[in-house]
Each structure stands twice: as structure tokens, then as C-alpha cells.
């Protein structure tokens, strides 16, 4: 029960603690990195290097008024911010962090993850529609349009990986990459997935549902206090999740590059998994600092007319190659 094996209590406790801690740290990391990219300091007052900034933020958010607008639809208004962090945390149950480290190994892990990503869209949509605020409504509409459009090929872009590994289990996919990362045969799939992942988690530059230059804060305009905090934390957990999922699917998960394995395979696996995740977190922050936001119509036609055909093409080519090799 307390050993390193998938599903043990120790695993559950460690993973939940690490994910929550990492998400809180991530808020600080992103702000410091953004500060670095923007030629300024970022938060550096609370604790050494400002590392306790998130703690201060949580204390502030918890003691803020828990306000439900009288004009809002109460139940969906309260439920909306809860959905996002819960589904994002649940998705982590499928992530194989290292051999023997994980919460559950399901044979439909990838489908579970996709289902959770689909549910996450409800968070922004419900929040936007329940607020009875026009900015929130516009944000909710944008979230709906953007997330359902990009969800279509979010799934299709991963089918190449499924074909190669012959598995929906994330652990199976990682194990299948022991002799080569999927990013090379599945480069198109990887690119499409990256874009879709950014759009699904409405990270910059796809932050149209909350694009503040246009619609103030979009779907969460009327949210304050901890309910806003849950949206906020949920977004960071989502970003962390995507940064974990991409190495699992395309970069060999816990497998060390160039045979740089060391010590215990669990320690080595955790180290490389964390290293790869950090690279993608850095990448997400860099994207946020560098790119500009497309317009709604550009986002949509890009998705439907470029990404969708590209992912279908990738799927067919992968299938044909696999069949040719097999016969």
C-alpha cells in the first residue's frame, strides 16, 4: 500500500501534493519568467526570490468576499469554476510519471483525458453564460466556439500516436517509445496537438475567451475571490497537465534521452519527466511573451481549414506507412 506501485496511497498523496504544489509554484515561475522576458523583475518580495507569492495570493483570495452576483444564475455560476480544476486534476490520474509512479493505468487513458478536456470547456461556457454580463457572455461564446472547434482535431492529431503504439493507455504509449520518441514520426501530429492544446487551455495567444483588450476578462469578468481563484488555478493546472502530456505522448515520457539514465529507474524517470515538463512550461511562457492574439475569424478558419485537414492527412499517412511496414 505504501510502496511505489501504481495506485498506492503513497502515490496518490505524493502526486496530488506535487501537482498542487507545482501549480502554485508555476504561477510564480510564469510571472518571474514573464518578468525576465519583459525586461522587468516580476514578484520578488514574498519569501526568497518571491517564491511564496502564491501562498500570499491564496491567503488573500480565501479571505476575500465570496460574492455571488444577484443577477447571475446561481447554481451554474458556482459550479463553473469548480469544474475546471477538478477535471484538470482528474486528468493527472492518467499520467504515467515513472515506472510504478501513477494513480491508475487505464487502457482507455487517452480517451479519459480527451473526455476531461471536453468537460473543461463547460467551465468557461457556463461561467460566461451564467454571469448575465455582456462581456462574460461574449467570452463564453468565444470559449464555446474556440474550444469545440479545436477539440475536433485535438483528438484526431493524436490518432497517429495511437496507431504507432497500438494503445490508448498512456503508460502503454510511453513504454512503446522506449526505442524512439514519437515526435519524429509524428511531427505534424505534434505541431497540430501543440496548437490545439494551447487553444483548449485558452493560453496565450489563444486567450480570446478572456482577451482583456476586447472583453475585459471575458467569461470570468463577474468572478472574484476564490471562485476567480479556481479559474486561475485551474488554468495553471491545465497548463501543467499539457506540459506533462506532451512528453508522455511525443517525447518518450520518463525515458532518458541519449541513454542518460542514472541510478534507480524511478528516480531517473521522475527526473527526466520533470525536466521535459519544465521545458514545455518554459515554452508556454515564452509563447505568451512573444506572440500576438489572432482575431476570432482567423482563429476559426485556421482551425477548420488548416489544422483539421492537416491532422486528417497525418492520420492517413501514418496508417498507410504502418500497414506497409506490417505487410
Amino acid at each position, binding site marked *: 500500500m505504501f510502496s511505489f506501485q501504481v495506485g498506492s496511497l503513497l502515490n496518490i498523496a505524493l502526486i496530488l501534493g506535487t501537482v498542487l504544489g507545482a501549480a502554485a509554484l508555476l504561477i510564480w515561475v510564469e510571472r518571474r519568467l514573464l518578468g525576465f522576458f519583459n525586461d522587468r523583475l516580476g514578484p520578488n518580495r514574498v519569501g526568497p526570490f518571491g517564491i511564496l507569492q502564491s501562498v500570499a495570493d491564496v491567503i488573500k483570495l480565501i479571505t476575500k468576499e465570496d460574492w455571488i452576483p444577484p443577477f447571475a444564475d446561481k447554481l451554474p455560476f458556482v459550479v463553473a469554476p469548480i469544474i475546471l480544476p477538478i477535471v484538470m486534476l482528474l486528468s493527472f490520474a492518467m499520467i504515467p510519471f515513472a515506472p510504478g509512479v501513477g494513480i491508475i493505468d487505464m487502457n482507455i487513458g487517452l480517451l479519459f483525458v480527451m473526455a476531461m478536456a471536453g468537460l473543461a470547456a463547460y467551465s468557461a461556457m457556463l461561467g460566461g453564460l451564467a454571469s448575465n454580463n455582456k462581456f462574460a457572455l461574449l467570452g463564453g461564446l468565444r470559449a464555446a466556439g474556440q474550444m469545440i472547434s479545436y477539440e*475536433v482535431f485535438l483528438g484526431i492529431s493524436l490518432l497517429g500516436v495511437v496507431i504507432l503504439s497500438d494503445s490508448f493507455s498512456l503508460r502503454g504509449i510511453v513504454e512503446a517509445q522506449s526505442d524512439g520518441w514519437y515526435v519524429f514520426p509524428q511531427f505534424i501530429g505534434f505541431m497540430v496537438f501543440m496548437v490545439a492544446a494551447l487553444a483548449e487551455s485558452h493560453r496565450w495567444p489563444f486567450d480570446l475567451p478572456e482577451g482583456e483588450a476586447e472583453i475585459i476578462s471575458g467569461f470570468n469578468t463577474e468572478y472574484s475571490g476564490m471562485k476567480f481563484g479556481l479559474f486561475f488555478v485551474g488554468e495553471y493546472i491545465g497548463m501543467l497537465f499539457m506540459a506533462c502530456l506532451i512528453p508522455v505522448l511525443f517525447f518518450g515520457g520518463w525515458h532518458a534521452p541519449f541513454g542518460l539514465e542514472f541510478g534507480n529507474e524511478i528516480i531517473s524517470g521522475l527526473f527526466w519527466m520533470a525536466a521535459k515538463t519544465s521545458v514545455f512550461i518554459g515554452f508556454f511562457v515564452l509563447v505568451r511573451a512573444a506572440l500576438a492574439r489572432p482575431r476570432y475569424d482567423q482563429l476559426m478558419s485556421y482551425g477548420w481549414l488548416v489544422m483539421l485537414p492537416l491532422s486528417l492527412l497525418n492520420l492517413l499517412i501514418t496508417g498507410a506507412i504502418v500497414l506497409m511496414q506490417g505487410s
Partner: protein
Amino acid sequence: MNIDLFPLILYGGIVIAAIIGLLVASYLLGQKRTDHASQDVYESGVLPVGSPNIKISVPFYLTAILFIIFDLEAVFLFAWAISIREAGWVGFIEVFIFIAILVAGLIYLWRSGALEWRTTRQMDDRQSIKGEGGVVNIKRLGDKTSETPVKGSH
């Protein structure tokens, strides 16, 4: 294959309890006060006109319909992807035809303008612009990084 779902259920329970716990803590600890304009809807600091509950124009619904069509069809592709080796070339050809129909539908939608979110003015104005844009009368020596401008038309 029979999976023990207990860890997932346990983990899920903890997660849900933690998140709801945060909200409850905030409800208990948060300050409570009401000022004159606390209960107003936020609309840039002035009173709103009209309700946000309105009939919204068609393009938004169209996107939803497109999603349903394409996402449902994607479900079949999921099933094929996991069984590609069993289905073999016959399956591949079937999927090829299936995707071809899908793409034909996409092309039809595109040609009929269903995938055009732009307004007529956006398209017209975009058509009317000339050249690369930007300053036309001052050329820089060599590439853009040169510091000294060459004399313009003055």
C-alpha cells in the same frame, strides 16, 4: 482486462473534496460587506442598456453544428486507429473513402461560405489595400536594420 478503479475513485474524491473545501473556506473566512454599487452588473462602470439574454446571430450556432458533425465522425476514426492492424488494407480504403467524404463536406462548407466568419467590409477592405503596407517614401539602405535612411522624396 479488469482494472481496479479504487485509486481513481479515491483520488477523485480527494480532489473534489479539496476544491469544494477551498470554496467553503472562502465562504466562511471571506469578508462580507455591501456598498452602494456592489450589486450592480459590471459594464465598464456605467449602467447597462438591454439584457445579455438575447437572441444571438447564426454563425455561433453554425459552429456548434459543424462540431457535432465532425466530432461524431472522429469517433469512428478512434475505433479504426486502435484496430488498424486487424482491419488491414481493406479497412484503410474504407477509412480513406470515409475521410474523403469528410473532406469533400469540408470543401463544400468552405466554398459555400459557411467557414467564412469575416464581414463583407473586412473582406472588401482587405482586397482594396495595395502593396506591403507601411511607409512608402523613405527607403533604408540595404535591409531594414540599417540606421541611416536614404533621402526620401522631399
